[in-house]
């Protein structure tokens, strides 16, 4: 295991007005196991405790309780050893805006113990790999969001660590840059680097990771492979808008080919394993009971449906 966390918790003490103190439980008991070489995602809405979890694993924040071993070392007792073995790219990126990107890269390389020559060679290697050579000497503030993010990841990889943490790596990027970044993450997997990334994008977790956990309010609500989690819910989902939602829900829930029915804001979501064959049955049943359909669609189940099943809300609403 490159990451092994047991019952990690973090409680922040927030000062309120008139000196009152309030405790905020950001992370409420998280267990994680990540295999070497895996791309592992932590998916959840904003405020779910993703960043706090990553910060504890990367030795930035001390856990309130629980233990974690990263690359074989305890994050609390052997933080220096952990730091030698990880790259950490925070949500903010951590690139000095005023200096050219190459300066951040060279400083990070030298701090890890490289000589001037080694640092230059490693920087050149990374600049080429991330197509940054031409803009290496421009002040970082003149670069686009995507370019800055690539610099941030290059800095994180400067020591060629076996594990890299990417906290919300694609937030704020346009679709083109997001797609490019996904390719970079896939390349990391090919090179055998373990990746732990956090995201609130369903498609990102679905497209990139080997395994994931879904977190909500500081706790893990589901864990598995994207395929496995979706299969657990159902293969397909039929979304209906109709008159008399309550009656329709009871009716559909009693049908043997439908696994589960959710009603929310006048919209019904029926989960079934074989949508193509189930849909005609559904239509007939609803017609027999004179329930008028306004709209209907058939889709593959997504991780959002997994989130909905476990939390009762849609990730889109939660975020």
């Amino acid at each position, binding site marked *: 295991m490159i990451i092994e966390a047991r019952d990690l918790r973090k409680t*922040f003490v927030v000062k309120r007005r008139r000196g009152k103190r309030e405790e905020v439980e950001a992370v409420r008991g998280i267990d994680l196991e990540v295999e070497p070489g895996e791309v592992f995602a932590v998916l959840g809405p904003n405020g779910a405790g993703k960043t706090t979890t990553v*910060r504890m694993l*990367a*030795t*930035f*924040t*001390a856990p309130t309780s629980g233990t974690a071993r990263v690359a074989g070392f305890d994050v609390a007792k052997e933080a*220096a050893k952990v*730091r*030698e073995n*990880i790259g*950490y*790219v*925070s*949500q*903010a*990126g*951590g*690139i*000095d*805006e*005023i*200096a050219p990107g190459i*300066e951040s890269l060279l*400083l*990070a390389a*030298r*701090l*890890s*113990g490289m000589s001037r020559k080694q640092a230059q060679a490693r920087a050149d290697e990374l600049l080429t790999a991330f197509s940054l050579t031409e803009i290496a000497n421009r002040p970082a503030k003149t670069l686009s969001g995507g370019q800055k993010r690539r610099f*941030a990841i290059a*800095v*994180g990889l400067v*020591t060629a660590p076996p594990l890299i943490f990417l906290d919300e790596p694609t937030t704020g990027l346009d679709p083109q840059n997001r797609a490019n970044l996904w390719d970079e993450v896939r390349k990391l997997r090919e090179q055998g680097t373990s990746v732990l990334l956090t995201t609130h994008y369903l498609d990102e977790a679905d497209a990139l990771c080997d395994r994931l956990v879904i977190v909500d309010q500081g706790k893990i609500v589901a864990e598995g492979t994207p395929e496995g989690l979706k299969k657990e819910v159902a293969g397909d989902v039929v979304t209906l808008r109709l008159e008399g939602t309550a009656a329709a829900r009871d009716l559909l829930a009693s049908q043997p080919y439908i696994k589960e029915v959710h009603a929310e804001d006048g919209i019904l979501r029926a989960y079934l394993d074989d949508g193509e064959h189930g849909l005609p049955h559904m239509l007939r049943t609803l017609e027999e009971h004179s329930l008028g359909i306004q709209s209907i669609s058939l889709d593959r189940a997504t991780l959002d449906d997994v989130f909905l099943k476990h939390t009762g809300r849609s990730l889109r609403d939660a975020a």
Partner: protein
Amino acid sequence: MMVRHTMLFLGYELRSLLRNPVWPLFGIMQPVLYLVFFAPLLRSTVPGGDMTDVLAMFTPGSMMMIALFGSMFAGFGLINETRNGVLERLAVSQAWRPAIILGRLLKDVIVLILQAILVIGIAALMGLRIGVPEMVLVLLLMAATGLFAASLSYGLALTLRDENGMSQVVQFFAMPLTLIAGLFLPISLGPQWLQTIAKFNPLYYAVEAGRSLFRGDLSASTIPIAFGLFVVLTALTLTWSVRSLGKLAG
């Protein structure tokens, strides 16, 4: 590793500075303006009205002005780095943490000494006379004052993490500190109560020690007091700022 990392951060800061070498020049405009436009006004307050004596009295004050004002704002750049992730990244890198602050402090002191040499140069053109050992001691005294003010500023920046709050706090402290130090006119001209309050202001000793050195009086008791005070104060504020760095994560 401690020295190596400090030097790496110092080098990084100095390269940053060399890309924009104009900013520190703005910093010395204030003391230079005071020297050129304010010092002549003081001639009437000095017995004999000799410009050399006026400069010996006024130059130390204007130098402490850059040591204090210039350095008290040193932390502003760091506030941004608490938000843009730079400090977060460095905190989980293999960097020796105090080096993050020490490297910046050394850069601040180097800039300060260069500024001070320029100010002394201009004062010399106007008629100031000072010996080499005295000048070296004056520069060291400035460095000590600057180290204290800058590390205080870094501590404030890392604790407050808010530009508005920081500028209010700095103004709040800087103004009375400079008034009660006798920056422009010696405190000894003032009433007894003012002289008593001044004894509690570390900056007062720095200004008085500076005046003694400019007069060529190496035996003045304020000189060892000033150095001793600033060594202790710097040690305290530096420890505080490094601790605050460790508390960033909450």
